C-alpha cells in the first residue's frame, strides 16, 4: 500500500467509526479552540491523534490524565487536548510534571513537547528526571528545528541542515535522542516517524503503561521551515522520504541510531527495562530506614 493509500485508509477508518456524529476526535479535543495553529502537513497533529488513540485503547479515564507542555509548536498540544493540561514555561514541562506527579501519584502525567524545549533549554531536566526515574511519559516531537520562532537550528538539527541561524549549514553535531534517553536511565525508549501511525500508537501505549520515565521520539515533518529550507518538499513528500528511508531495527543499540540530514532513519523500540520509580524508591527506602515512624506517601 502506498503512503497516500495508507493515509486515506486511516481517515476512512476514523470516519466510519464516528459516522456523521461529528469530528471523530471531539471527545478528546477542545473543539472550541479549533482550528489549531499548526501548518498544513505538519506532523504534530498526527502525534496528537495517535496519543488520543493510545489513551482510548488503554481505556484510562481521561479525568486521571494530565498533559504538560513547554513552549513551541508542540508546546501548543496542551491547549488543544480536552483533559487537564498545562502550557508551562520554555524547557520546564518536565519539572512541572514531576511536581504534578508527586503531588498526586494517582495521575497519569504525560509531557508532550518539542525537541528544542525538551533537550536544549530543558536538557538538564530531561536527564535528571530520567535519572530519578520519575513515573512520567515524555513524548518528544522532533522536527529538527525551532519552528515557532521561524526556523532556527536546534540541538537536534542534523549536521549540514540549512536553518535561519545556520545559513551556511549546521556544523554542530546533533543529539541522538534515544542514546541520550537510554544513557540517563529511561526505562522505555522508542522512535518512530509521523508516518508510523500504528507503531507510534503502540509505542505510546507501551510507554504510558510502563512505570518509570518512558520516552517516545516522533520524527515529524515541518513543511514550512525544515523541509522547505532543506529541499525535502512538503509534509507529504517528507512522509514519503520516511517511508523510503526508515529501517525498523528493534533492540538496535541506541549509539547506532543517529539521524543525518539525508541518511537512513533507524526506528523501533530500543529500550524496555525495569527500574523502581522515584516514588517507589522513596517509600521503600524510608520504610526500611525509619520503620513505623515513616508515614508512607500515597499523595
Amino acid at each position, binding site marked *: 500500500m502506498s503512503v497516500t493509500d495508507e493515509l486515506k485508509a486511516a481517515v476512512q477508518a476514523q470516519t466510519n467509526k464516528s459516522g456523521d456524529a461529528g469530528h471523530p476526535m471531539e471527545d478528546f479535543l*477542545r473543539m*472550541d*479552540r479549533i482550528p489549531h495553529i499548526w501548518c498544513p502537513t505538519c506532523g504534530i497533529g498526527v502525534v496528537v491523534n495517535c496519543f488520543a488513540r493510545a489513551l482510548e485503547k488503554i481505556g484510562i479515564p*481521561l*479525568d*486521571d490524565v*494530565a498533559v*504538560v507542555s513547554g513552549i513551541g509548536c508542540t508546546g501548543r498540544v*496542551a*491547549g488543544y487536548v*480536552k*483533559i*487537564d*493540561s*498545562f*502550557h*508551562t*514555561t520554555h*524547557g*520546564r514541562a*518536565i*519539572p*512541572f*510534571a*514531576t*511536581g*504534578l*506527579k*508527586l*503531588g*498526586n501519584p*494517582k*495521575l497519569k502525567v504525560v509531557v508532550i513537547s518539542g525537541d528544542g524545549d525538551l533537550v536544549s533549554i530543558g536538557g*538538564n*531536566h530531561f*536527564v*535528571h528526571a530520567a535519572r530519578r526515574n520519575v513515573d512520567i511519559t515524555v513524548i518528544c516531537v522532533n522536527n529538527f528545528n525551532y519552528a515557532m520562532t521561524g526556523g532556527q537550528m536546534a540541538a537536534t538539527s542534523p549536521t549540514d541542515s540549512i536553518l535561519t541561524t545556520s545559513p551556511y549549514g549546521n556544523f554542530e553535531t546533533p543529539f541522538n535522542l534515544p542514546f541520550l534517553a537510554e544513557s540517563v536511565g529511561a526505562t522505555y525508549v522508542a522512535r518512530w516517524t509521523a508516518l508510523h501511525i500504528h507503531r507510534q500508537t503502540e509505542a505510546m501505549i507501551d510507554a504510558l503503561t510502563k512505570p518509570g520515565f518512558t520516552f517516545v521520539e516522533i520524527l515529524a515533518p515541518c513543511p514550512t521551515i525544515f523541509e522547505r529550507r532543506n529541499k525535502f518538499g512538503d509534509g507529504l513528500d517528507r512522509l514519503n522520504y520516511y517511508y523510503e528511508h526508515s529501517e525498523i531495527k528493534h533492540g538496535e543499540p541506541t549509539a547506532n541510531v543517529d539521524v543525518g540530514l539525508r541518511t537512513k532513519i533507524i526506528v523501533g523500540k530500543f529500550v524496555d527495562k525495569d527500574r523502581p520509580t*522515584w516514588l517507589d524508591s*522513596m517509600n521503600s527506602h*524510608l520504610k526500611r530506614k*525509619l520503620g513505623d*515512624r*515513616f*508515614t*508512607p*506517601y500515597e*499523595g
Partner: protein
Amino acid sequence: MKADPKGVMTGAHYLDGDHACCEGALAAGCRFISGYPITPSTEVVERFASRIPIVGGVFIQMEDELASSIALQGAVWAGKKAMTVTSGPGFSLMMEHIGLAAMTECPCVFVNVQRGGPSTGLPTQPAQADMMQARWGSHGDYEIIALSPSSPQECFDFMIDAFNISEKYRVPVMFMMDECVGHMIERVSIPEADQIEITERNYTKLPPGEYLPFKPAENMVPEMCKVGDGHRIHVTGLTHDYRGYPAMNPEAQEEQVGRIVRKIRDQADDIVRYEEFDVEDADVVVISYGITHRVAVQAVRAARDKGIKVGMMRLIIVWPFPEKRIAELAEQGKALVMAELNYGQVFFEVDRCAKGKVPVILAGHGGGTVHETDYIVSKIEEAYQCR
C-alpha cells in the same frame, strides 16, 4: 480550619530562623518542597528532608532552581500546599516562574534567605537587597505579597500567614528572610495545632463544565480546582480568558493582567501589615523591616535618650507597601528615616509616598553585617535637623 497536628511540633524550642521557617511551613500544611541547596537557606530544606517522611509528604531536591521553582507549582495543581526555598543567585533563576505563578494565580510560597549580592556576593552574610527583585523581578506587570520576619519566632508565625495569604489571594508569596534571621538561634514557641488557624484552598463547588478557573469570584480572586477533579482545565502562561484559553489581545490583557495587579493593589488596605511605637509625638520616624528592625529599635531608644522625639514603624508585609500610612506620617510633618541593608530600595517607595513634604533620609548599608546603631542614630539626627 485548624492545623493538622501531624505537622505541628507543639512546645518551646531553641531554633534558628531557617529551622523555624520549616516548622512554620509544616504547621501551615506545606507537604511538598522542591528545593536546591544554597547558603544561607539550606537549613530550611535540610530540616524538611528530615521531618517530612514522618509527617507525610514529599521533599525532592531538584537539579537547579529553574526546576525547583516550577515543580512546586505542579504539586499545587495536584492539590498540595507547596513552597521552595533559596537565596540571591537562586532567586534570580526563579524569576520566570514567579511570573508564571502570578500569571496562573498559583498559590505558593517562595522563601528567600537574603545574602549580599549582586552575583555570588556574600554567601554567608546578610543583606536585604532583593526586595525590589521580589516585587518586580519577573518580566511583565504583576503583584505579589512579601513578608519580612525579624526573629525565629516570626519565621514560624509568619510562614503560617504566608501560606494563608497565598490561598486567600491566589498569589505567590515571597518570604523575605535574611542571613542573620536565618541563622540566629532563639526561643520559638509553637502552639497546639488547634490554636493555629489555616486558610483552606478555595476549591470550587461548581460542577465540571460550569467552573471557569480564571473567572474572578470573591475579592477578585478566582476559585481553585485540582487536577483529576474532572474539570479538565487548561492553564497557560499566555494571556488567557476565564476558561484559561490563550487570548492574545489587549482586552484579555486588561481583563487578566489588569486583574492580577488590581486584586492586590485595590485590596492593599486589607493586606498591608506594620507595627509602630512612639510614633504619636515623634518628630522623626524610623522605618525598617527584617533584621534591620532590631537594630533600628536600639537606635530609636538611643536617640530618645538624646532627647529626640523619634518613633518606629516596622514593616511586616513590605509588599504591597503601606502607601497611605507613609503619606499620613509625611502629612503630619514627621521626618522619615528608612533603614535597610541595601543602598536604597524600599527607601524610594517611602520617598515617593512622602511627596516632598518632609525630609526622607536613607540609612543604607551594603550588607555583610547589620547596621551600627550609631549610624542609624546619626541619620535620625540628620533628619531631625533638616525637617
